[in-house]
């Protein structure tokens, strides 16, 4: 019989108050080995508090945290197996890059020689090898962020908790961090991250948990959320003039029609409905210049879920 793999992290019914504010209100989640789990939610939703509880920095007022790091069940985190990139991230500005990285690796249990070697490897990988001896204050903001990222994973953690890893990054560095996180996952590191960048999360996460006001508002793979919250195809049409669109009301499966800021007509059509008859009818009645389809994005799901729309509903047809 194959032994059952322990989850890396389990949070059960976590509750945390700060004074009279309930920051986390009964959230439970399980993180399986090797997955990338993203926590999504607006500012103040309780994501960072939840991550701090997962790290043992904060103690929950109620609930239980369990770890399965190294295949061993434990009630306390083993910091040598966890990496953390905090949202509020700072640096020892007067310290050389390599020494800074070696220090944090050593704090997390690495031998000093190994820490220096691993730090050099990552600096080389991120194009900072020639800056290893420079003080951190001499680095650009982008390079400082790279160093901060390295410091959270230089000791090869089993679980990396990354709070807003993409914040403040330009698009090139966002892509770089995306590929680095994937690389980590491929090398066996389990990732839990929080982010506001829906497009990046969509490209990266295996599962997401949507958090609103300290509670879980939705959870699952992106595909599953899509099925639940946005099981439709978006049809974007460019047409001439101001045509009469009332005929679209009679079409089964058309959930909404609206005009986008770019002047296109956006039709949300239930995914199971065949598009050919609809397009033929539109082609017959309207002078259509362009047409394209788009599936519902994580951004849409986020806005609907966090914005308070509990269940998908047919929007008012504007025609």
């Amino acid at each position, binding site marked *: 019989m194959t032994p059952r793999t322990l989850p890396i992290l389990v949070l059960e019914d976590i509750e945390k108050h700060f004074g009279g504010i309930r920051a986390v209100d009964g959230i439970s989640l399980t993180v399986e080995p090797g997955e990338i789990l993203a926590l999504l939610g607006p500012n103040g939703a309780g994501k960072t508090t939840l991550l701090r509880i997962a790290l043992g920095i904060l103690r929950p007022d109620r609930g239980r945290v369990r770890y399965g790091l190294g295949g061993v069940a434990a009630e306390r985190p083993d910091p040598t197996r966890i990496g953390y990139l905090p949202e509020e991230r*700072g640096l020892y500005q007067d310290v050389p890059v390599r020494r800074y990285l070696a220090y944090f690796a050593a704090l997390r249990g690495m031998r000093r020689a190994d820490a220096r070697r691993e730090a050099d490897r990552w600096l080389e990988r991120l194009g900072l090898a020639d800056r290893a001896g420079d003080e951190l204050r001499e680095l650009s903001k982008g390079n400082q962020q790279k160093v901060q990222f390295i410091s959270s994973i230089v000791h090869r953690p089993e679980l990396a908790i990354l709070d807003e890893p993409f914040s403040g990054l330009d698009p090139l560095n966002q892509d770089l961090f995306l590929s680095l996180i994937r690389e980590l996952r491929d090398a066996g590191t389990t990732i839990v991250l929080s982010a506001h960048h829906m497009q990046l999360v969509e490209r990266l996460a295996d599962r997401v948990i949507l958090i609103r006001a300290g509670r879980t508002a939705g959870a699952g793979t992106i595909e599953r959320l899509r099925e639940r919250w946005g099981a439709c195809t978006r049809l974007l049409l460019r047409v001439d003039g101001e045509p009469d669109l009332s005929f679209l009301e009679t079409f089964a499966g058309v959930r909404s029609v609206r005009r986008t800021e770019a002047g296109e007509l956006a039709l949300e059509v239930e995914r199971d409905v065949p598009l050919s008859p609809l397009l033929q009818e539109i082609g017959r009645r309207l002078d259509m210049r362009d047409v394209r389809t788009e599936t519902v994005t994580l951004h849409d799901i986020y806005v609907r879920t966090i914005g308070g729309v509990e269940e998908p509903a047919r929007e008012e047809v504007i025609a």
Partner: protein
Amino acid sequence: MSAWHPVLEVALWEFRRYIKPKQQVVGAVITLAMMMGGAGLARLGGDEGSTIELAVIGADALDVPAELDRFRFERYDATALDRLRREVEQRERDAVLIVRGDGTGELIVRQTPGWPADLARTLTALAVQRRLEASGLDLERLAAIQAPFDLAVHEAAPRAGRSEWFAAFVALFLSLMGLFTGMGYIFISVTGEKRNRLSEQVISAISPQAWIDGKIIGLSGVSIVGILNLIVCGLVFLVLSRVLWDSSVPLPSRVERPDLLLAALVFIFLGFLFWFAFVTAVAAIIDDPHNSNRNQLMLLPIAAMVPAFVAVMTDPAATWVRVLALLPPTSAGVLPARLLVTDVPWWEGVLAAVLLIAAIALVRRSAGRVFRLGMLMYGKEPSWSEVRRWLREAR
């Protein structure tokens, strides 16, 4: 990973952050230059050892020679007095001495210099000599008559000579310097880490207690290096001033009781641990070091060290001094002072050590709790009631 591993990593990190060999050498050179410059200026400004030229009226009354000891005498007639007085007023002359036949005299100066006592001694000796010559008494017989009773003192437990008092004072001064150096570094280190948002990164990796312990050990090391630096500078200064100016300082020729010296050093170090733990907790509850009134708590160690200086200077065996030498946190300063200048019963030393170690354990634990929560509180300072609650939870 052993429990000591992160403590030692932090200690080494803090030590290396603040001890940079080049800066230490530059600092030592500057300190030595300041010592030498100060001493040199004092010598230039002072008149010790230099020759003083005096205009003398009535020199015949004592048959004042042209030169005696460090004074050179230029004879004048009484009619020149007004002119000489004006010259003194107008800084053209240092002083005028008027000698009278009745064994009295008058010195006219613009403002009182440092050497009149020397002049009085010189003139007294000259007057005694002239009177003896006049009386026909043999100088050797007079010396025999006036010879003091030669009382040799043999101490059973020799203590607290001038040199011991001086050494005790220097030891207290150095420990105070070490205390303030360390406190300064701790304050800079903790408030800097908090301001730079480094707390979470560290606390996610190691326990706050390991962090605070490492800081205290590392920055105690920085303090000790600072003290050693001062001692080395002081010794070089003594050697140089002896070579250049032939000056001497009353240092003990040898250590009479190395055991007591060691005990005093241990107490001073325990005092560092106590105050550094306290200061670490205080710094952790300060959000903005420039605007917080909690900075004033940093002055508490001074209040605890003052009795030590008073004890050295007044009565180290007084009851109030003995009580303060037993109770922490004053014991960390007062007991070493007492050990160096007076006899301390062994049980007082042991009791004071036990109480101080217990106090350190309590402060360390409480500081760890305050530190853990204080370091994660950004943007505001915890209220005193919050700090009290944290401390209650620490028990």
